[in-house]
């Protein structure tokens, strides 16, 4: 896989350019771009300021003590034996309790504000389903199913467009984390969690699965593509159409549908209706393959179809042992799925 992903740093920028998108490669939690991440950021400033103050006082006293009370030569005398002081003990019990009280109340406010936010009627709702090792996104209201790259509209001061996520898992526990947009929330089988984001900047935000979920946990990458309202509508319109049916690739299409690809993958408007793998109806509208592990270029697509185990060892798509003709035709069919 390394020959492919060695260029990922560069590619982050390139795919961004191709999509007319700025990529924000640094998932810096102190550079928030949505309300949930920003509320956390403001709380963190308070908590860190208090912690820093405590650190400087205690570490300062400690340093002073070490320097001042270092034994200088041995005069054979023991220092004064002091056993304690109730007054001091009370002081350094009560002051921390007060600090703890303040921090707890400040924290509780943010918890309530973020967790108990009600869903506006017109909010975009997306169900996120974690799989070993990729993401499924289902936009129920729009009738869109896609994978690994979550498209959401940007929120502006004029028009708030929050996106509410319902988090579920098809197998083991995962966690949805795009640091610049929000803290993480786990995707747990047999359970539905929720979170929301309202990104204020267009561009692609990078994230990861943050709960260890097996062999390829490291390559369960996540991209949130924030678009202007118009661009988002345009993208959604494209996704809603049935998969391309190009007369030039009828043979290739027939080959694809005759292979066992269809047991795991869906392509809308065809007999391919598997649900174990990502929906391929509009594969070419995605910038990456294998849950963000390589850019979606013709060469990479071919390499992935030929043997995904080389690129992402252990992932659940086996090497299908396609012969050269089948490989050509499957790749050319997939390339037509704009």
């Amino acid at each position: 896989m390394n020959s492919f992903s060695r260029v990922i740093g560069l590619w982050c920028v390139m795919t961004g350019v191709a999509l007319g998108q700025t990529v924000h490669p640094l998932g810096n939690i102190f550079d928030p771009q949505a309300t949930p991440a920003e509320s956390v950021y403001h709380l963190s400033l308070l908590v860190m300021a208090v912690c820093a103050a405590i650190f400087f006082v205690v570490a300062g006293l400690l340093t002073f003590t070490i320097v001042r009370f270092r034994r200088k030569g041995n005069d054979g005398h023991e220092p004064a034996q002091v056993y304690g002081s109730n007054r001091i003990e009370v002081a350094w019990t009560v002051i921390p309790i007060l600090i703890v009280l303040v921090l707890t109340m400040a924290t509780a406010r943010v918890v309530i504000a973020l967790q108990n936010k009600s869903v506006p009627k017109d909010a975009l709702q997306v169900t996120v389903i974690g799989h070993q090792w990729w993401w499924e996104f289902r936009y129920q209201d729009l009738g869109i199913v896609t994978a690994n790259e979550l498209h959401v509209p940007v929120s502006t001061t004029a028009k708030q467009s929050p996106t509410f996520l319902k988090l579920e898992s098809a197998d083991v526990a995962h966690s949805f984390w795009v640091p610049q947009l929000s803290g993480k929330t786990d995707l747990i089988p047999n359970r539905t969690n929720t979170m929301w984001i309202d990104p204020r900047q267009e561009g692609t935000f990078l994230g990861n699965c943050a709960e260890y979920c097996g062999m390829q946990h490291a390559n369960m990458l996540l991209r949130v593509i924030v678009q202007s309202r118009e661009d988002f509508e345009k993208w959604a319109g494209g996704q809603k159409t049935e998969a391309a049916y190009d007369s030039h690739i009828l043979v290739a299409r027939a080959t694809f549908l005759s292979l066992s690809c269809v047991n795991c993958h869906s392509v809308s408007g065809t007999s391919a209706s598997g649900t174990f793998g990502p929906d391929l109806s509009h594969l070419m509208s995605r910038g990456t393959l294998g849950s963000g592990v390589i850019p979606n270029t013709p060469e990479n697509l071919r390499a992935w179809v030929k043997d995904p185990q080389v690129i992402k060892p252990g992932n659940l798509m086996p090497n299908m042992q396609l012969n050269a003709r089948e490989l050509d035709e499957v790749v050319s069919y997939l390339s037509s799925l704009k």
Partner: protein
Amino acid sequence: MATTTYADGLEKTEALPVPSKLHEWIVTVDHKRLGIMYIATSLFFFAVAGVLAALMRAQLAFPNGKVLPPEVFNRLFTVHGTTMVFLVGMPFFAGLANYLVPLMIGARDMAFPRLNAFGYWMFLFGGILLYFSYVAGEGLAGHGTAPDVGWFAYAPLTERAFSRGTSTDYWILSIIISGIGSTASAINVIATIMSMRCKGMTLARMPLFVWLMLVVSAMVVMALPPLTAAQLMLLLDRYLGAHFFDTQAGGSALLWQHFFWLFGHPEVYILMLPGFACASEIIPVFSRKPIFGRAAMIGATVAIGLLAVGVWAHHMFAVGMSSSSNIFFVASTMLVGVPTGIKIFNWLGTMYGGKLRFDTPMLFCVAFLFQFLIAGLTGVMMAAAPFDWQLTDSYFVVAHFHYVLLGGLLFTLFGAIYYWFPKATGRMLNETLGKWHFWLLVVGFHMTFDTLHFAGILGMPRRIYTYAAGRGWEGLNLLASIGVIFQAVAVACLIWNIIRSLRQGAPAGNDPWDAWTLEWATTSPPPEYNFAVEPRVRSSRPLWDLKHPEDPDWKYE
């Protein structure tokens, strides 16, 4: 046995043939020998776990690392974590408690010597079972050798659908068995402290070390049952078709997390309190003052023990608990900061106004104070649940708990080795090598773990075997990996120091540090019966009373 007096004045028993010597160690029920066996075994596992960690850092030093394939990396962090918690942290302090508690309370052995030996052998075989999975964990489906589910093994990844083969079973059994050993040892410590104290050693006069060991042992007895229960449920799931955690059949993934952390968080304090216990003995002796606020220290310890069972879900802030549950665990977690703070302040109060001697044991304790202060404060940061939503499961958490367990626990553990090695062997460890050990470890530790905080802040999740370039993580990871080299050399200094000093260390005498607790009243190493005459104490510092008849402690107690 014949004894000879060596040129350096130390008496040694005549060398027995190796098989009889080995036999003596295997059948022993002597608390001191068992203590040394515990400590030696845990140091061995520590070295192994260190090698595993170094391999992981080699893989992560550069983006797209090619040192290890993913499945091997995932086994490494699972086995590293499991080893450090169950086969290094817990047994090391079982060893210290075994060795020191009877000596400190003026007893001749533990209350149940055979149970003591049983506990050690259970721990050893539990540990062997974990590593045996590397050769025997293949299983029917040919999946995996060693366990690869992470040390807290979240369900349902551990169910048969996702973990085929037998490696997860080795992990389960290894922990159940070593857990039986830990429970046996904890019950023994409690019984010993309750019933074997010498004349005049009231609970109020017990050394702080013994007090802390009492609290830790009570916590072990309290915390291990949920873990054992969860492991048995998991076994039932895997082999008898139960569905406790089997989400595909309606089981609950969160149930495992609650069980695990109900054990797992008290476990953190079970690991940490023995470190406090050592610091509470070493800091006063090297400051030449009694511990400041003894009663407050004991009270704070008991408070930590009680609070420890009410904070477990702060490991689960991201699982989608209700806001009121989250706020409850924010409050309880923040509250732990109060008794912990009291402890730090009291150690500081002990040093203030003293005459500080910076021998190696004290150096480690001073570094511990700084590092544990930082670890505690990053802990407060994560107690704020929304902040934790960002920080949990990132490298920030990795850095935080290594600050606690390495910067806090391991430093005091090393301090304890330098402090009590003379008692156990009759010879001093070399101070120069000790200083090399200390300073190299400080440099390496900060290089690795300070930087990893920032990787977490830049969004790097934990437990990833690889990462792409361009996300700001490369430099930090490289620096963290370089730090490992310093830490490895530091530990090599310790090992060399131990080997060298066993043969040619300076003779220690009974009381090399001019200390105050009873273990220093007998010879180094102590005879099998510890004390020829049962000691009688009148204060918490019996040797101070002996050395300063003009100003004894008992006048003030």
